[in-house]
């Protein structure tokens, strides 16, 4: 019998411990909220009930120390509930008590008995506080019998809530994690067995097992799904302790801090949850400790005295993003650079060239942040290297952004690993792969004769999709598992978006979407960046999960995408010759190839030659519900009498023009050097493309041929003298590409090859209405140039539009500081014209 009793007690104790730990976590959070809203009776009622429950259970299990402590705390809380004013000291005292309770519980867990000892110190303080705040004449509600026999006075207000809460409690039960893991394994086994059965039944045509087996199959699938879901938990579970930590730090450091949490309901795998708990705590602590300034400093900087730390979580592109942002002092790039040099991590010359963002990375270097003097210098704290190591371990990344004086934000990106995601199952060369659904924009079916078809022009493949030319890659060639079959005739294209990169992935077949449990890739295969993990499918097979980011990076380095050219420019800034451009090569009128910059072309089109009409001596075609004018590249081009007629369509602001060509040849990536000096209209110059002399066509020449009013109309001010634009770019290609575009839009363009040249023009008395400048230039860059312009009263007011392929928030911010009016990506032709219009409109108003 005695044995039986011990067993029962053990069981009870275990339940008590689990339950109490949870209750205490809740109290922690509630108390912090309570301090902020002392008049919230609901919160107070809940805290009271929790403490009371702990006390009651302690009495039952004969845990005198715990019981005495909770009793004293309960009395104090009871006084507050009865209307006594809440003081910060009292809350701190209660929190200290809760810490002590935790300590006792830990002991209890280890030894299965309460540690001998005394909590007189705390109890006395609690009693003193209770006496101080006691409301005269208040009913002695909370003075419960010390035995805690359960005759707790019922609070009148929260009664209804009690029943609601207990209902919630009845809806969930506690299950050990191991049990879930085992369930998962068993379900996988079940799935395998089912599949074997299905296989057997398939061989016997008219089996009576068929119907019940189908049912078994469905039930199994549902069971699997259900078990998988049990592993998911809201990230808020890992955040529970944080408000308390921030509150304590806030008190300790004497900095008022507002702590916001967003997206606590974002679900992630409990394994990941456990692993990120500590790093998150660390980061938040860091923000409070080092990020947020003291109130006096903040006030002096014109900021509200109360600092804010914002913690947010959301799902994005198959990842879970967690952001910890503060509005504190931000990182000091100069000091970090100096510290990096002092530590021998980089040379003076290296840090000189380094951007702020690059320098920030040093705060994650082991040893960098642990040393005290560095901490005080860098303004960021201890052990960020440990945080990064933890995040690396689960295959995540951490990034930092910071604006001096405005705050910092750390973005933790945890990839697919371990979490359950919805994935599209596709086939390539006979193998199946999973593509995370979040990165998938749409699916396009291509057939030889359908509307959508792959334009396979030598190596580069593109798809015409609405208004865009979508670069394509073939999954099996990316994975080097090509099976020799030609997929161009009939295939699926998975249109994916990763960051600002959109591309199509050609696969052999698309099956279905499945919720998959992402398992991390074997550590020895993690070097394969195209895979983000692997998973076991419903039918028991293991398949690889494509990592959208890895794929995007791989595409970025292959020569298929137009975006590749942009990113190539970022990395290959050494000289203008090193940058490659995407060009569309075609033939028109002569065997000599012609080329036009791909980004200028809106669409490639093939129309039925019979649909071309002559209207008033001009060529037109019915196109997308409108009449579109057609222009011949030169008079040698013969319009086909029947069959398909290839066109290059240029569209701008709702108007389209078709340029009739003989043949579309290729899309090439070239390091382009245009030899100018062409006297022929419609030709910018010539260049050597793929070893052949190629004419580079000047689109600006053709636009007015299609619309006589194009120039005036596009400029928007036909009756005035054209706006004078100063165009600065070190790359002749861009000058040559943009100048005609701007001219075609009705502007008077003066190109300059460097900032110095532009300044010289100003010096020489030239006047311009607006400046368009490349931001990344050797020597004086666009930022410095703008700053220079702002210094002179003559040029200070001229609007400046910056052009860059580096569109990071840092550059935008930097541009804003030096006085850039607008900011346009280099290839964004229509964006540039829109920006010009907007800025010059302002000039006109001002004039």
């Amino acid at each position, binding site marked *: 019998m005695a044995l039986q009793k011990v067993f029962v007690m053990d069981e009870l104790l275990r339940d008590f411990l689990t339950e109490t730990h949870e209750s205490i976590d809740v109290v922690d959070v509630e108390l912090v909220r309570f301090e902020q809203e002392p008049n919230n009776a609901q919160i107070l009622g809940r805290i009271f009930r929790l403490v009371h429950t702990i006390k009651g259970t302690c009495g039952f299990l004969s845990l005198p120390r715990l019981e005495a402590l909770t009793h004293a705390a309960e009395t104090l809380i009871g006084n507050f509930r009865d209307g006594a004013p809440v003081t910060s000291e009292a809350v701190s005292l209660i929190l200290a008590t809760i810490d002590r309770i935790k300590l006792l519980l830990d002991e209890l867990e280890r030894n299965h008995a309460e540690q001998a000892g005394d909590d007189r110190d705390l109890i006395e303080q609690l009693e003193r506080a209770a006496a101080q705040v006691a409301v005269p004449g208040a009913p002695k509600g909370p003075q419960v019998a010390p035995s805690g026999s359960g005759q707790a006075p019922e609070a009148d207000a929260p009664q209804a809530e009690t029943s609601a809460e207990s209902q919630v409690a009845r809806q969930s039960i506690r299950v050990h994690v191991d049990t879930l893991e085992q369930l998962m394994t068993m379900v996988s*086994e079940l799935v395998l067995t089912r599949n074997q059965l299905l296989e057997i039944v398939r061989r016997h045509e008219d089996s009576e097992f068929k119907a019940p087996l189908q049912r078994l199959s469905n039930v199994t699938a549902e069971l699997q799904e259900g078990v998988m879901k049990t592993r998911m938990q809201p990230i808020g579970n890992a955040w529970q302790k944080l408000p308390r930590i921030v509150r304590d730090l806030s008190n300790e450091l004497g900095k008022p801090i507002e702590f916001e949490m967003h997206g606590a309901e974002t679900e992630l795998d409990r394994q990941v949850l456990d692993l990120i708990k500590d790093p998150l705590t660390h980061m938040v602590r860091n923000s409070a400790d080092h990020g947020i300034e003291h109130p006096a400093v903040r006030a002096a900087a014109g900021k509200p005295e109360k600092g804010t730390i914002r913690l947010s979580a959301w799902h994005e592109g198959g990842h879970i993003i967690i952001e910890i942002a503060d509005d504190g002092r931000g990182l000091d790039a100069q000091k970090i650079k100096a510290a990096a040099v002092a530590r021998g991590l980089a040379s003076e010359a290296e840090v000189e060239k380094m951007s702020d963002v690059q320098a920030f990375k040093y705060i994650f270097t082991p040893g960098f942040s642990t040393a005290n003097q560095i901490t005080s210098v860098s303004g960021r704290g201890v052990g960020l290297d440990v945080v990064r190591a933890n995040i690396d371990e689960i295959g995540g990344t951490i990034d930092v952004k910071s604006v001096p004086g405005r705050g910092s934000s750390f973005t933790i990106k945890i990839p697919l690993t371990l979490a359950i995601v919805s994935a599209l199952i596709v086939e390539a060369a006979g193998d199946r792969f999973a593509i995370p659904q979040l990165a998938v924009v749409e699916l396009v079916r291509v057939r030889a004769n359908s509307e959508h078809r792959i334009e396979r022009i030598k190596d580069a493949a593109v798809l015409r999709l609405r208004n865009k030319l979508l670069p394509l890659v073939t999954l099996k060639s990316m994975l080097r598992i090509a099976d020799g079959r030609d997929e161009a005739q009939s295939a699926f294209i998975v249109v994916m978006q990763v960051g600002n990169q959109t591309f199509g992935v050609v696969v052999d077949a698309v099956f279905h979407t499945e919720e998959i449990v992402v398992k991390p890739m074997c*550590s*020895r295969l993690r070097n394969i960046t195209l895979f983000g993990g*692997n998973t*076991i499918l419903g039918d028991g097979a293991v398949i690889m999960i494509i990592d959208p980011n890895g794929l995007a990076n791989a595409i970025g380095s292959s020569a298929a995408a137009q975006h590749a050219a942009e990113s190539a420019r970022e990395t290959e800034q050494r000289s203008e010759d090193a940058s490659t451009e995407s060009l569309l090569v075609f033939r028109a009128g002569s065997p000599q190839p012609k080329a036009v910059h791909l980004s200028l072309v809106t669409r490639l089109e093939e129309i039925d030659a019979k649909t071309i009409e002559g209207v008033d001596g001009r060529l037109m075609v019915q196109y997308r519900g409108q009449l579109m004018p057609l222009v011949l590249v030169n008079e040698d081009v013969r319009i086909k009498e029947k069959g398909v007629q290839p066109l290059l369509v240029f569209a701008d602001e709702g108007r389209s023009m078709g340029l009739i060509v003989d043949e579309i040849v290729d899309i090439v990536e070239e390091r382009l050097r245009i030899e100018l000096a062409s006297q022929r209209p419609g030709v910018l110059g010539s260049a050597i493309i793929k070893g052949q002399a190629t004419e580079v066509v000047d689109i600006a020449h053709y636009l007015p041929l299609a619309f006589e009013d194009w120039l005036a109309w596009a400029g928007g001010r036909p009756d005035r003298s054209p706006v004078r634009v100063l165009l600065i770019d070190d790359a002749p290609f861009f000058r040559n590409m943009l100048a005609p575009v701007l001219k075609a839009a009705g502007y008077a363009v003066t190109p300059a090859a460097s900032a110095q040249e532009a300044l010289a023009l100003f010096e020489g008395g030239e006047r311009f209405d607006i400046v368009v400048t490349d931001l990344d230039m050797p020597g004086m860059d666009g930022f410095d140039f703008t700053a220079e312009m702002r210094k002179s009263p003559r040029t200070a007011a001229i609007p400046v539009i910056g052009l860059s392929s580096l569109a990071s928030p840092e550059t935008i911010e930097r541009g804003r500081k030096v006085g850039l009016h607008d900011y346009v990506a280099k290839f964004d032709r229509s964006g540039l014209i829109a920006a010009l219009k907007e800025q010059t409109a302002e000039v006109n108003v001002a004039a």
Partner: protein
Amino acid sequence: MSTTDHTIEYVTATIGGQLFGLPISGVQDVFMPERLTRVPLAAPEFAGMLNLRGRIVTAIDMRLRLGLPPAEEGKPRMAIGIESKGESYGLLIDAIGEVIRLPAASRESNPVNLDARLSRVSAGVHRLDGNLLVVLDMDRVLDVGAHAEAA
């Protein structure tokens, strides 16, 4: 043989005619590898991934790992399941042998003339009657890629 206090039990296996032993303490299970999923872009030693009772197992082709010619098509193979740092691996072998107990003291270091491809993954040898048992060092076996190119 059981004269010394300390003995080690080995799971034995043949790969390309050579006898190998793995300390039984490191072996999880022995199974027939089924439904291998190939891993594109991985080193050839990685035979693929498979699902073993809900666990994902990375299969390593020991023939290729040891620099031997690949096994004949369609010949049934066996796999020895081992675990390393919480991950499961399956070593594909030609045939599984018996479990033998050998005194730890009788293990000799690699003979100097041992084939480099073997000594790379070997933790020593035991002389058996007319046979040589090469003890596999799990960590080094799993270190695919690090030395693969060296030979």
